[in-house]
């Protein structure tokens, strides 16, 4: 996975996306912006990494192989160990219904791709600012 960030106390962001170029792009920019980053390629991997690493925030693409982002979010929000981790849904589908379904699954925020790296980082910062550091 990714090289550790410069600072072990900086927040860990778990980025979940099956599209490698997008995933690595966001990872690179998040690291550039001072975050630590972990990556997952599908919903199942996301759930496993969330349990193992307990990230500060999860960026969740919704259309994923093996287990989709909605199901992964439902599992994370259904487990007391990961319930408090904010999940930002990330999708390229702008069709109606996706945002509602994402909310229903328990996503805390919703970002539509294309999303520039700096805009995504601003969203991560906004979400982190609204949750208590104890989460």
């Amino acid at each position, binding site marked *: 996975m990714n090289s550790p960030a410069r600072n072990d106390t900086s927040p860990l962001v778990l980025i979940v996306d099956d599209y490698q170029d*997008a995933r690595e792009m966001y990872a*690179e920019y998040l690291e550039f912006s001072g975050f630590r980053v972990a990556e997952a390629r599908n919903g199942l991997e996301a759930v496993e990494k969330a349990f193992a690493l307990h990230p500060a925030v999860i960026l969740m693409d919704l259309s994923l192989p093996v287990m989709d982002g909605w199901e992964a979010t439902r599992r994370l929000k259904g487990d007391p160990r990961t319930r408090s981790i904010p999940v930002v849904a990330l999708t*390229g589908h*702008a*069709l*109606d219904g996706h945002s509602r379904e994402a909310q229903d699954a328990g996503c805390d925020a919703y970002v539509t*791709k*294309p999303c520039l790296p*700096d805009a995504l980082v601003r969203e991560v910062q906004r979400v982190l600012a609204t949750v208590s550091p104890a989460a």
Partner: protein
Amino acid sequence: MPSTAALPSPPAPGPEARLAFAELLLGCDEARACAEAAVTWLVHHAHVHQVLCLAPCESDSHCLVPLASHGLPCAEDFVLALHDTKHPLVEALQWTEPRWFHPGQLPTELPMAMTGLFTLSLGSTAPGTPATGLLLVASPEPQLSPDAPWLAGHLGMHLTRLYKGRQLARLEAASTELAARVNAATEELATQNELLRRQAIQLEQASAAKSQFLANMSHELRTPLNAILGYTNMLLQGVNGELAPPQRRSLSRIDSNGRHLLEIINEILDITRIEAGRMPLHLSEFRIPELIQEVMAELDPIIVRSKLAVSAALDPNLPPVHSDRQKVKQIVVNLLSNALKFTHEGSIKVLASYEVPTAMLHISVADTGIGIDPIHQEKIWEDFQQVDSSPTRAYGGTGLGLSICRRLAAMLDGRISLKSAVGQGSTFTLHLPRRTRRT
């Protein structure tokens, strides 16, 4: 109408005579046989001395031909009986009731043929039409046997019945044929309807497939575009180190073209969503001045670059609006962007007013730009259409903006109007109801 001398009603014949005559007539189903039998019967049983039975000629319905006769010396000494007011002969003569005539009192409208028989015009009847019942009963005495008029009437009625029966048979045959044709036509129609219904379903499916395809395609296009725009953005931010000015310029071109491509994809997606009925309405209460302020702030970089005098004049009494804020904003952004794009000098004014009686808001963007020729003022609302859509056109864009605006306005129960003249500028106005009803 000729003078008539109706005979005093003769007493009705006895029951035996009636029965015998009725049986005689019932046994006949052909006019000539019927007439011959009747004449014979009249001579032998009713003591009638001279009988002439006439009917229209089957091959030429304009002529009367004798069907049967007995002891008739000439056609001058007889009584003419026409019965049944519905009889074609009677109708042709416009008689309203049966009349009896004595010799010498013949109706003048019955012309004599050379043969001494009558020829009447009955109108056209097809060849093979059965003979109808005109009975001429001749007698040397003015006073007939009391049976004669009654018998003559019955013979005529029977002949008429035969005629009508044949007519009925022909009518039934024609009716059956017509029914068969109607059935065939109905079946054909049902087949066509089914075909149309299937075609409609196919069209609907094709349209849904098209929408789904466009939605998928725009998603598929946006995924790599996201990476292109993202990496470009990162490079421009110096994530991978500082850039030399030429590299920065090239990357800026990639960035602006990528953004333009994204805009096109988003517009196609918008059209697709509206057409597929999948563009959701998010109604809320909001104020127009704040919205216009936001739009102008968003377009500020372009406004500054344009060096045009861009101003807003808003009615102070604008009420809050209940509509879809994002869609109203999208329309105003689009109209103002267009004004900025097509105006090279002068000014752009954004006006908003409220019309109390109709509860309509009018948001106008008035420019002093190039204007639109009346012959192009319809075309600009269509998909992918611009006044100049040629490859060498001076103005870029997808030609989808106004088409989207028009659809969005319709979704909000509103519309967009245009006033424009070449060289005079254009004024686009969004007419928006204060409250959009959720459909």
